[in-house]
């Protein structure tokens, strides 16, 4: 049975990755799962300089989901390379660094810094964070500026580039087309939907940042649809995510066209979700006599 997939040059032994920002820098979950079993580890989004993030409250639960407005708190690229990467190099798993910036120059400098660093298998370019004032979603919500970020980064690195796309746009397929043209090796989708919640007793937004990003099972139908549409629009591989809690959910994404899947906030609820998703996919393939996971990718388009 073959589970291995190739995400734009990143060889994954199975399709199951972690979603940025929901798995820390890997070690946090090592008590619960064998990291070596993962298809890939995607780190929390990092920036050139350390960031404190937004004020609290930063999260609020919503029906079958949650809003977060972390605001890219991270210790900066230097600390990540010194403190966290050496640990991750100890595992036989591709590490994908998720990067964000306020300006195109920030992205370019980050990418250049990470170029050639041992243990970095690829970059996920976060142009879809709804929780920072500058950069982030501002780039991702316009196909042309999204393409510009990607092509500038492309200029400084040979690392596989995965453009992380936002669902907060009129046409995610159009953004995917443009980043593919600009040199992205793969796309990952979806980042969170912009949302908010109001505390009716205090008569003010719950999150200090007012808006936050909606994730969890609530958004899965939107995410599956996005993967479906992007699969029809581009030929580069897709990492699908948004509300995956079990193998059934992951298979929805794969059948819609995702080559890889990422488990996000479900890890908070059940730290073993990634592994259970993997085991469930294997069980499904066995039951259905499927030899290669490739047979399942995009299969819902054919029926």
């Amino acid at each position, binding site marked *: 049975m073959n589970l291995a997939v190739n995400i734009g040059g990143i060889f994954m032994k199975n399709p199951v990755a972690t979603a940025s920002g929901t798995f820390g820098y890997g070690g946090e979950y090592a008590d619960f799962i064998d990291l070596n079993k993962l298809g890939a580890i995607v780190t929390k989004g990092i920036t050139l300089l350390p960031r404190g993030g937004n004020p*609290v*409250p930063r999260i609020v*639960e919503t029906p079958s989901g*949650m809003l977060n407005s972390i605001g890219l708190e991270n210790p900066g690229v230097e600390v990540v390379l010194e403190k966290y990467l050496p640990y991750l190099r100890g595992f036989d798993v591709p590490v994908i660094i998720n990067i964000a910036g306020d300006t195109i120059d920030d992205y370019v400098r980050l990418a250049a810094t990470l170029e050639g660093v041992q243990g970095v298998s690829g970059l996920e370019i976060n142009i879809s964070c709804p929780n920072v004032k500058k950069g982030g979603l501002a780039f991702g919500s316009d196909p042309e500026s999204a393409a510009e970020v990607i092509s500038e980064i492309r200029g400084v690195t040979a690392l596989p580039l995965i453009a992380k796309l936002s669902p907060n746009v009129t046409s995610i397929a159009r953004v995917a087309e443009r980043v593919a043209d600009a040199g992205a090796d793969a796309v990952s989708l979806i980042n969170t939907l912009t949302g908010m919640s109001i505390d009716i007793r205090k008569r003010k937004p719950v999150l200090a940042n007012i808006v936050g990003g909606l994730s969890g099972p609530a958004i899965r139908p939107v995410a599956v649809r996005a993967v479906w549409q992007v699969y029809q629009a581009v030929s580069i591989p897709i990492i699908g995510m948004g509300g995956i*809690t079990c193998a059934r959910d992951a298979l929805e994404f794969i059948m819609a066209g995702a080559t890889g899947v990422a488990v996000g*906030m479900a*890890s908070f*609820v*059940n730290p073993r979700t990634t592994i259970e998703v993997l085991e469930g996919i294997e069980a499904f393939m066995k039951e259905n006599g499927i030899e290669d996971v490739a047979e399942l990718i995009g299969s819902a388009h054919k029926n």
Partner: protein
Amino acid sequence: MFNSKYEIEENYQVFPGHYLMAFKSLDIARTALPGQFLHIRCYQGTEPILRRPLSIHSINKEKNLVYILYRVCGRGTGLLSGMKAGEMLDVLGPLGNGFTMPKNDEKIVLMGGGIGAAPLFFLLEEIKTHFDKRIDKVSVFLGAANSDLIVGKEKINKMGFSGYYATDDGSSGFKGTVIDLFETIWTEGSPDRIYACGPSPMFRSLAEAADKNARIEVSVEEHMGCGLGVCLSCVCKVAGPGTSTENAHICVDGPVFDLRKIIF
């Protein structure tokens, strides 16, 4: 740190809107420290989806029973209160850093506001086990809205600690806040060490009321996602090196902090 399902031994209302639950867990009973908390899944479906952080209230080490004491205030705790003996509880923990234990000669004050008092009992149990000879140096101050809501009065007496009680409405003991009560009773000198659990306004008054030399450890609350330092939702600002401030993450760096280091 464990994530497993443990059998519920009992779960009943102890006073209006407040429940006491015990579950059997060798893992947690053997390893937990006072002040640590558990991240509990109240429902196996996706709504409500997040775990709920609840302190360890007490541990029966002979029977490997772990107790939580909780106030029903929303959907998660509502579902929890409906669970029955024999059902399995999905628990992640023990999490975070607990209280540091007192030194031998210290005069100790424990202070709890409302349901915030929950974790203090596990601490009292440990103090009693390790410092049985000096429990006269320990004073417990508890406050609540009314007399019905004072947590564990009898238990405090039975364990041999001196308890002092305040209620907002004066329905039992002192009328006023637990800090007012403390200031009224404790007129001479300063305790060496204060452990406090409760809402954050209580901590602010405490920072003003207490002697500068007392070491004050408080247990802080914030909305939590992962409980493991991953999601970065549970931030609290603390003093960093020099005059700098930095982010502490309550679930891993706390929930217990040195009150003087917290920047409100």
